[in-house]
């Protein structure tokens, strides 16, 4: 819980800075956008990666998110926190990607041709983000959990990623997804139970 609260405080700090940067950008300071990208690229990319399950797709989608931010930033009216607005764009872009026929076709082809290739590519990705302090066992476990998340239905996956991986509050998730708070709770409950079922014997 403390981790979540710490994350939320950090997000608040980022939000304040983000809003200041937007004002600077809106008043003509174009370099403010670079600062925004630097500040939020890790979160946005990680969110995309956990939702899409593929590194290249996450890279492409996260770039698309920032292009959308750049295009629409002048229309941002400060009616919500910048982070909420940014994550809403991220979630919607990921949803569009997940439902696109190209993405579905590619996903099926990978699984049918070589089921192991998927996890191999994931291991290669993990190599990129290798933490010197992380143990190999933890890496394998994270691979399994990641795969289990990808098995979830889209609406459950989004809620789990936002709540359990990124530690967002229920109200913010409701604001990002446009769902009612009760729906967020029930979807999260079903997602956690489904993950417990999938990861039985592993965790």
């Amino acid at each position, binding site marked *: 819980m403390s981790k979540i609260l710490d994350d939320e405080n950090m997000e608040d700090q980022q939000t304040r800075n983000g809003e200041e940067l937007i004002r600077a950008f809106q008043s003509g300071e174009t370099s403010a956008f670079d600062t925004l990208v630097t500040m939020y690229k890790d979160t946005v*990319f990680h969110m995309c990666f956990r939702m899409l399950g593929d590194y290249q797709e996450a890279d492409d989608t996260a770039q698309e998110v920032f292009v959308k931010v750049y295009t629409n930033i002048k229309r941002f009216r400060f009616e919500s926190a910048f982070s909420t607005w940014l994550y809403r764009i991220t979630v919607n872009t990921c949803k569009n990607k997940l439902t696109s026929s190209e993405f579905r076709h590619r996903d099926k082809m990978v699984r049918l041709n070589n089921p192991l290739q998927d996890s191999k590519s994931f291991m290669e990705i993990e190599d990129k983000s290798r933490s010197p302090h992380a143990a190999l066992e933890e890496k394998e476990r994270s691979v399994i959990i990641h795969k289990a998340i990808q098995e979830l239905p889209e609406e459950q996956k989004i809620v*789990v990623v936002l709540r359990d991986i990124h530690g967002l509050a229920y109200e913010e998730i409701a604001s990002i997804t446009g769902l009612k708070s009760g729906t967020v709770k029930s979807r999260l409950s079903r997602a956690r139970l489904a993950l417990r079922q999938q990861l039985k014997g592993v965790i």
Partner: protein
Amino acid sequence: MECERIEKLLSEYIDDLLDLQTKTFVESHLQSCAQCSKSLEELKNIVQELRKLEPVPPPADFTANVHKRLAERSWAMQLFKSMFVPIKIKLPLQFAAAAIVAIIVITLSYKIKPDVEVTTRTPEVMQKERQQEQPFMDKSAPEPEKQDRLSAVASKEEQAEKKQNSRIIEMTLMLKQDIRDFALAERRKGTAMEKAETEESTDVQPLPAPSSLKRKEAKSLIQKNKAIQPRTKKQALKEQGSEDAVAQIKTLATRFGGTVVDIEFYSEPTDKPKTITVKIPSSGYENFLEGLKRTGRLQPIVEVPAQANLMITVRIHLLTSLAPELPYDPG
């Protein structure tokens, strides 16, 4: 059954979102149910594992790629704009379109001329209202619509006269016979249970038309009237009366040193005189006016001193009950 219910509440229990009563209910169940306690532990582990997932960083060239994509997009947008009509071309096109529309409208509005001059159709009742709005019909220059009706020669003469101490006066003359007809029409209108009108009553006109009536409607109604109203003996007599009035005006003008310059006729339905233009010196104008007053009701009566030494052009609009009929619009 209770375990299923508890299982659904475990997620919220982990996040400490349950109200006190539900939380107590869950805790009491967990104390007595080993299976649900085990489920709780498993869920807690799942949540902990999810929170422990290491963030995957983006590639090092992520920001550069975003810039690259923005540049590509900007280039694509420019290409799109250049392929389709850009604003630089679009605006002149819009102006050109607006200018063409304006030219068409102006051309059409000048070509469509009224067949019936509505102002000359306004009999006594409406005339009073008009007089309140325009106390003096005496104008220093004729109205544009009326000007079109005069011949080109007459227009030139008038222009020349304007330069040399001349004056143009417009007035309406309702012949005595027609005054009686209007009075008769008013009386009949007031009678509630009157029988169907006889043939003789067909020449009695209903209430006059307001000057605001649309000309197209007027024209169609004139044609309609022409079709449904046969010419009677009385109508013929009245036309004769109008022609007599023209003869009287001619005689009057000649007697007092003037001449009849122009006579304008209604084209439909009776071809009877509509406007008579008389030129008369100011010395004979007063006597001429007195003569006209004996012929019928004259409005407005414009006085000009005999010593003014002017050549006066008098345009007399004849109002008769046989003029082309226009409906009365009470609105």
